């Protein structure tokens, strides 16, 4: 994902020191050093234990989960078994949830990234009226947590008869002020202004400049925009929960909530006692939700650093 364009200046406009000066840091001697390592390693362990547990949980039957050591592995066959059980739940509705989650997320990421790049470029490289006001509104919208707008969005969406449609979730989630700001910072710091000027001198219009000059230099930006919009929309719960009504439109996170409440796996008081949805099945459903995001996070951890602090640019 790294392009040469990303290297000279990081997205935050700061130079990242690659490896510090020769290490002569005495951390209060060996004792302090050991202490630091213990803290770092214990925290790392605590961080990965839940994920490891979740990864191996569906390899065991419900009894094995109860009786065997938490980190013992069952069999690979049990993953298939648990999946088959999940398929029996409401005629395999989980497949629909998975498909919905993928489709909605792809649509959201596509719309969000394209609108963000266009707007970011317009704000950074072209003369548009009310630029400063637009920037401030975008910043405000970016800092306010999306959850805060869910109920107002519900009222609006019901008024325009979009309730319980995929479009309700896709459109509302495609509003991506954070992406606009990232693109704006990128286009104003990582690409020299002279390049835009030169293209214009040659008679290129704004779209041509964006298409031929700015976009080819922006692969890193696209990676970052896609990363953040994917990680927000794949796991989003509250918005689809409120904007969707029927099970066949649900996403995987909302469906997971339905699974929780319709099996006795988590609460014996719930649902049909003879349900085949037990703890391994619930764990497998959770895994389906967690693994894509885990993979994306591990592959793109660098983007996290650059993106979140993109606001603080050196002028």
């Amino acid at each position, binding site marked *: 994902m790294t392009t040469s364009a990303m290297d000279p200046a990081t997205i935050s406009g700061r130079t990242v020191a690659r490896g510090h000066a020769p290490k002569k840091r005495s951390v209060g001697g060996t004792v302090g050093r050991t202490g630091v390592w213990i803290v770092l390693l214990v925290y790392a362990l605590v961080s990965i234990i839940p*994920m490891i*547990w979740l990864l191996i949980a569906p390899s065991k039957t419900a009894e094995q989960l109860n009786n065997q050591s938490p980190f013992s592995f069952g069999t690979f066959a049990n993953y298939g078994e648990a999946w088959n059980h999940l398929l029996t739940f409401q005629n395999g509705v989980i497949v629909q949830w998975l498909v919905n989650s993928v489709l909605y997320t792809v649509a959201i990421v596509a719309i969000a990234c394209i609108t963000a790049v266009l707007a970011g470029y317009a704000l950074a490289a072209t003369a548009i009226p009310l630029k400063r006001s637009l920037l401030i509104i975008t910043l405000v919208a970016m800092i306010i947590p999306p959850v805060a707008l869910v109920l107002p969005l519900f009222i609006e969406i019901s008024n325009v008869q979009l309730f319980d449609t995929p479009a309700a979730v896709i459109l509302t989630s495609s509003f991506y002020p954070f992406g606009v700001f990232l693109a704006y910072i990128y286009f104003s710091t990582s690409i020299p202004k002279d390049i835009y000027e030169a293209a214009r001198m040659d008679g290129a219009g704004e779209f041509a400049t964006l298409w031929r000059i700015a976009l080819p230099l922006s692969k890193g930006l696209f990676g970052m925009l896609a990363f953040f919009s994917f990680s927000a929309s794949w796991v989003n719960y509250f918005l689809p929960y409120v904007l969707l009504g029927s099970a066949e439109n649900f996403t995987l996170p909302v469906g997971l*909530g339905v699974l929780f*409440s319709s099996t006795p796996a988590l609460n014996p008081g719930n649902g049909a006692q003879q349900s085949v949805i037990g703890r391994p099945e619930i764990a497998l459903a959770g895994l389906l939700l967690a693994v894509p995001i885990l993979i994306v996070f591990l592959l793109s951890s660098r983007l996290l650093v650059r993106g979140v602090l993109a606001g603080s640019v050196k002028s």
Partner: protein
Amino acid sequence: MIAPYLVLLIAFGIVPVIVAAITSLEPSVINPGGGPLNYLQALQDFRFLPALGNVGVFLLLYVPSMLIVVALMSLLLDTVQGRWNVPLRLAYIVPASLTGATAVLVWYFLLEPTLSPYKDVLHALGITQGGQIWRAPNLAWIFALMAFFTGAGNWIVVQYGSLQSISDDILEAARIDGANAWQIGWRIKLPLIQKYIVYMGILVFAAGLQVFVEPQLISSSVYPGLASNWSLNQLSYSFAFQSNNLGGAAALSLMLLIVCLIGAVFVIFKTDFFEGAGVKEK
């Protein structure tokens, strides 16, 4: 060029706020006259103060622990350069993939003494049944724990990134002056990344104020009713979908929104975080 975004901004950023403002003044079952009384009634609802208290305790636990642990861990991580740095960072961001519904699921299992990976610890503490943990007085702690583990790792990596921006000259100068690692961390690095920490604090506070998924899922499926109307957002959800009081729901949502709005405006205009982003008046 900016038009597609502008459409989304207006349709899903500005219009919902206006619609909510109008709705918040509409008549409802408990307030046939409509008007600003909706706001007062939302605040006077018997569930409002408990929910405010819950969220308040939750924030008191969650925000400071985020600030302290993230600052400390990122400083410690910064002392480890070389090949071990990357695996540590990767380990720290793993919990971020367990968010929302999955976080509830995983924490249900982690806190269930019969099958938790920490069951020995739980047994040692005399906890043999999930019911001993999942009690109303413990909820703020549990939800803070969930939110903390979901968010802290990513922020540690982010703040570690901000530490990388400190120039080596400054650190070298401090070392020559005889400062030890502890003093460099506390007196030099921490003040230099202060604005990033403040930024994080405000984002974390705004998100925490809106807590919804965890109590809602626990309450609607795992332990029915245990955390119903536990948070302010849940209460606003109840107004809308159970009490058929859309006016009250909109009023409460807007009040929460305004608190976040104040936070946002504070970050933009009162800190130097966005300095140079073209926001300040030249």
